[in-house]
Every structure is written in C-alpha cells, then in structure tokens.
C-alpha cells in the first residue's frame, strides 16, 4: 500500500522525528561504509526527512565519546579524536640494546657534544646510520650545535629522556673510570703482566677533564 502512495499525498504519516533519528542512528552504526543522505532516505520509510534526522543525531552526539562525522558526501560514526588512545593496546617488547648502540650512547653521554667522526675515533669502528637513528628515535640522543670546524659537522647530545631513563640529574653525574672500578663495577684485575703500568692516569684525565669539561661548558 505504501508503495502506491504518491509523493504528494502519502497515505500514511512519516514516523515521528525522534523515530527517524533512531533510524539514522542504527543505519550509521551498522553500516560498513559511510552513508549518504540519499541512501538513508532510500532505506527509511516514505516521507522521512533523513537530513533533518541526521542533524538532530549530530547534535545529540556533540561532545560524546563518538561523533557523527562527514566523510566526503557521506556520514559515519567515529570515535572522538581525543579518545583514540583508549583504542590502542600497546604490546611492549623488551629488547637488549645492541653493543654498538650502547657504546655509541655511552660515548655521546660522556663526550657530548660529539661528532660522528669523534665517536668513530673513540670506538675505533664506524658508526652505522641505523644505530644513530635508533637512538634518536628512542629520544635518548638528539642533534646538538654544529661544531665550528671545517665542514661544520653536527654534534650529538643526550636528551632529558635519557637522563630520566638512567636516573641521572645531569650527564656530569656519570661516574669516571676510577669510580667505576672503586665501585667494583669493572673487573679491575689488570691483565697479567700489566700490573700498575696501565690504567694510565692520563686516560682518566682525558675523560674527566677534556671530556666532560668541553662537553658541558656552556661556552661553545
């Protein structure tokens, strides 16, 4: 019967607006794709005003956990952007930092600001791009000022996130070799035959004064 009703003279009244709003709500909710107003109208009983019902629904979802959003010509229900984090489930995978990465990090921490060439000189091997990228991505190092030397190389420094992770107030708090040894953190048994000769004082010097001083001197 409804099919026979003409547009101009419907036999039955269209459902109430509240009912139409429910319909739009269910359609938008269940649809796998965003839905056009024309599509809603086609699915709703004759005489419905999908656009008006949609406007009501939109207003109703204002400020809610989900919103009615326009996608091109169509409409869809989507999570409010500020709640997106609730829909993420983080799986944390622990990995040991590679030896190359931890050594590079250590050199940066003790010598910052330090250039890539200097890191390579200290480690005695080249530093791969991936290692530096990883440390930057982890937000443990960042670019420092360019060195005022030929080629103006970039330098690396450690970040507050690094200090936070390692429980340091400043990189200056990193213990020197002597302290490490005193604390029993190093195998302080010198290789046989080396006895007192080695553990050269200068080395310690380098790293305490040259190293730390030039790094944290604000004056560069």
């Amino acid at each position, binding site marked *: 019967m409804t099919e026979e009703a003409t547009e101009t003279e419907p036999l039955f009244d269209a459902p109430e607006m509240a009912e139409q709003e429910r319909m739009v709500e269910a359609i938008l*909710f269940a649809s796998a794709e965003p839905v056009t107003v024309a599509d809603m109208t086609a699915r709703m009983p004759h005489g419905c005003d999908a656009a008006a019902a949609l406007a009501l629904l939109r207003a109703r979802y204002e400020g809610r956990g989900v919103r009615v959003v326009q996608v091109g010509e169509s409409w869809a229900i989507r999570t409010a952007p500020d709640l997106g984090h609730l*829909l993420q489930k983080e*799986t944390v995978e622990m990995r040991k930092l590679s030896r190359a990465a931890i050594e590079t990090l*250590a050199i940066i921490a003790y010598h910052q600001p330090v250039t890539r060439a200097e890191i390579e000189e200290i480690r005695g091997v080249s530093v791969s791009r991936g290692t530096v990228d990883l440390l930057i991505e982890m937000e443990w190092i960042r670019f420092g000022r360019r060195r005022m030397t030929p080629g103006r190389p970039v330098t690396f420094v450690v970040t507050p996130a690094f200090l936070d992770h390692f429980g340091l107030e400043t990189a200056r708090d990193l213990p020197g070799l002597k302290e490490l040894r005193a604390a029993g953190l190093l195998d302080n048994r010198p*290789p046989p035959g080396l006895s007192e000769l080695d553990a050269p004082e200068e080395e310690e010097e380098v790293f305490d004064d040259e190293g730390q001083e030039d790094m944290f001197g604000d004056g560069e």
Partner: protein
Amino acid sequence: MSEDQVNQNSDQISVSERLAAEALIVDVDGFEGPLDILLTLARTQKVDLLKISVLHLAEQYLVFVEKAKELRIELAADYLVMAAWLAFLKSRLLLPPDPAEDGPTGEDLAAHLAFQLERLAAMRDVAARLMARDQLGRDFFARGVPEGVERVRRIEYSANLLDLMQAYARIRTRDEFRPFVMDRDNVFTMEQALERMRPMIGFAGQWTDILSYLPQGWDMDPGRRRSATAATFAAALELVKEGHAEVRQSETFAPIQLRHRKRADD
C-alpha cells in the same frame, strides 16, 4: 495400562494407521532416527504426550517396521534395534510382572519412553523458539566499521646505567678492561688479538711489522711472547681474509708486515 486398553490396541491396527506407516516408510530418509518416528507416530494419537499409550505406539512402530520389510526397504540398524526393544517392551506390558525377575517393569520402561518423547518434543519446541529470536546480523546488528583495538607494538630497549658505564669503560680501557673470562694467564687468543687489532688497523696506512701489534707486557716472557705472536699472526690473517688488511713478507723469516686496506664499505 488397563487390560481392555491393551486388548483393544493389540489386535487390529486400523487401515489409516497402516497408511500412515507406509507414508512414514516412503519418507524414512526425512526422519531423524527411530525416536523421531515414534514422536511422529505419537502425534497421531492426538493426545498429550504424557498420556500417550506407549503400547499402542509400540505396535504402530512394529507395523511400520513390518511394512518396511514387506516393501523391501532397508532400514538403518537403529530402527531395527528400536523395533526389538519395543517388542520386548510390548511383551513386558502385556505379561503380568514376574516377581522373581529383577530389572525394570514394563511400566518403568514405558514411562521412560514417554519421557524421552516428551523431552525430544520439548527440545524441538525450544529450538524453534530459539531460532525465532532476533538474531545478530539478521534482526540486530553490530558496529559496521569496528574501529577495533589498534595493536601498537612498541619495542622498548633495555639498557641500564651499568650497561652504559661498562660500555664506556670497555671502549676507553680496551687494553685492560675485560669482561670476566676464564683466565689463562699465558695464553693470548686470536679473538683477543683480533679485538685488539681491529680498531688499530684503520690507522695502519703504512707497512708495519705485526710484532708491533703485540700487547704490552707480552713481549718479555718467551712463552707469553710466543702465544701473543701466534695469535697476532692469526688475527692478521683473519683481517686480510676479511679484506681489511694486506700482509707481506719479503723473504723467509723476514718480518711480516701488515697494512690497512680500504674496503668499499668501509
């Protein structure tokens, strides 16, 4: 079950019942086993399942099986087992109970069969009610575009202060700092020599006697010197093999010299 009821039922089976039995046989594939047939037959009694005459039912069933035999229709074993059981039940119901005999009485068996039929009918009924319910994906719907839970895989690298400090110490004191190893005081291994030489080889642009690569303190004692020399020589060859260095010797027993070799990927 009363005597006259039994008599009335046992003798002749009405024509309509025979016809019904034949209809069942023709359609035997459409039935879900003997209990299903019995339930269908019971319904022809048009009484509450609790009040059906089990004896009558048994007879109807036996007629059905007889008929099937006449028509040479193969019945599944289930149907025949049921027929045998119903024949036994029928005899139990018709004969007076033997007080000496153990086991359930005919009435017990009949009551259980009635219970089974009623239970099956009830399950059929609730199954229909269940299927008549609103169903997900037919009458009501879930979210069309579930946004789901995004699985974020985060890799956390573990490194503590000790790792950091030890790494630094390892670099700065390569000659002296060693991780704990089994001490073999007078043996210098190829691995040790390699570790020692690797960082140094990069700077050896000129031909250098490999003996100059001997670690400090290993050149005095003859035994230690021998071990260190052998290890250094082996390590030198390893570096050559890896393409990091070149090695030469001008004549037999002449000093063996080593020089850095630039590699494409260096």
